[in-house]
């Protein structure tokens, strides 16, 4: 199973969508401690792939296993994320995960994934680690003259179609 997951992570094809996430989740739930020896490498590979993933379903596949691990083994996962650097820029693993997670959480599909994501966010807030306070993520869109004009044009187009 690990070979299949590794192949899916290395491929640039994201057609696997949600399947790879389901596969990793079932691996974590069933294998228990048996997966511990390969866990650091697996999580690092997922963080690296997270930086280039394009589709919402594939990103969900990469984020939800982290949410599951955070909910069940918060301190161990945070230790790992705080000590992991990914990509050529050497970004902190925690920074990569939290930015990708918060940008995509609103589009997660399925009851279980949205629930484990919310519970894991609760767990992170309760953890109160200093490293979590320093991570900065994307907030709300800044309304400028350009974005406002785009919204006005969009709304006007809708009104015209209705009329």
């Amino acid at each position, binding site marked *: 199973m690990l070979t299949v997951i590794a192949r899916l992570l290395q491929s640039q094809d994201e057609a696997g969508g949600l399947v790879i996430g389901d596969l990793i989740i079932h691996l974590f739930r069933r294998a228990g401690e048996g997966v511990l020896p390969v866990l650091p490498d697996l999580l690092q590979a997922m963080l690296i792939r997270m930086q280039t993933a394009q589709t919402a379903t594939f990103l969900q596949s990469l984020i939800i296993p982290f949410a599951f691990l955070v909910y069940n083994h918060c301190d161990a996962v945070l230790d790992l994320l705080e000590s992991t650097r990914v990509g050529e820029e050497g970004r902190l693993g925690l920074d990569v995960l939290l930015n990708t997670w918060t940008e995509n959480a*609103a589009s997660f599909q*399925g009851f279980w994934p949205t629930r484990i994501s919310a519970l894991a966010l609760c767990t992170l807030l309760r953890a109160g680690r200093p490293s979590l306070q320093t991570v900065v993520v994307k907030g709300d*869109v800044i309304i400028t003259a350009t974005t406002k004009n785009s919204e006005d044009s969009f709304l006007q187009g809708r009104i015209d179609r209705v009329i």
Partner: protein
Amino acid sequence: MSLLRGLGNAKFISSDVEPPQFTRVPFPVKALKLLLHELQTNGESASMAAAPTAPLDAESDDGDSDWSDEGKVKDDRYGFLADALGVGGVPFDEDEVLANNDDEDLQNDPISQIDLRVSAACLSLMGYVGPC
């Protein structure tokens, strides 16, 4: 001719529109915002979400049992829609239920049975949010 005149006044949209810009916020702020949104939309457990609410045919829901159904529409052609969307059916504005493609194993997982409002209450006790 009027078309050409119209074209003269047309505003052409440049293809290199600036991408939207976003504020930057600390992670805990964004996490709280996501949690509040989740609570507003669907905070209850899977079993609670699936449980039907009180039946509509209760004898009286406002204490006025003399009220009669004189104006009740008898046309049942669209009754199936009421069954599907009404009490005990799928909430029409509930995307989560419609998009619930979890496998049976995950549906029976204890995580699906957790009421998110309880976790939010814990955060409330810790001073992150106001009383729920």
